[in-house]
């Protein structure tokens, strides 16, 4: 699944480390998600929507 995490994070001016701390995950997890290597769980995806104050489909792009 593709995502706009990197851009959103840059727009908000936070580092991978800051985002990891805010979401209680490791920086490796954020990096892996940003690079499209790892899909987050629903819980983590919801945490992201709350953090960025955006709906899910504005962060993640699902393609068939």
């Amino acid at each position, binding site marked *: 699944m593709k995502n706009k995490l990197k851009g959103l994070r840059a727009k908000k001016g936070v580092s991978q480390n800051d985002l990891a701390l805010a979401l209680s995950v490791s920086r490796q997890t954020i990096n892996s998600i940003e690079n499209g290597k*790892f899909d987050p769980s629903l819980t*983590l995806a919801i945490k992201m929507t709350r953090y960025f104050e955006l709906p899910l489909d504005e962060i993640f792009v699902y393609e068939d």
Partner: protein
Amino acid sequence: MAKITGYGFWIDIKSLKGEDKKNWIICLIASGLAGGLAGYLSVALSETGIDALGGIEENGIYIWLSIIEIVCIYIAVYTYIKVLKNQDQLFQKYNEMTMIGGALGFILLGIPIAILSPFIGYDFGFIDLFLGFALGACINSYRFYKIFIKED
């Protein structure tokens, strides 16, 4: 949160905090002790080892060393699970992939050796199944590193 390092074979202890760090260190010490005792006891209690010692009845200490080994294994597993429960989903995935690799190594390497051992004159032992598990776990740990962690 645990940082996976060393090509997927290690965890940066500094990345763990408080109780997790303490439990991880206990886990490492307990598994190291259990491994050392397993190696020592497998030699000491082998057929030739027992002969050299003068029989198992004469060496009551070995039952206690064996019990200590089992206790160390239980402590290592207990503390590992306690650390694992506090980690994020990427680490849980790492654990999952490593264990699946171990199970595959056990089935695809250890069991065929067990089946073929009478035909090739190989003295099969439990250690072969364990080595199959360890090899499979190592392969999948490295695969995990390559797929999810390695930064381009």
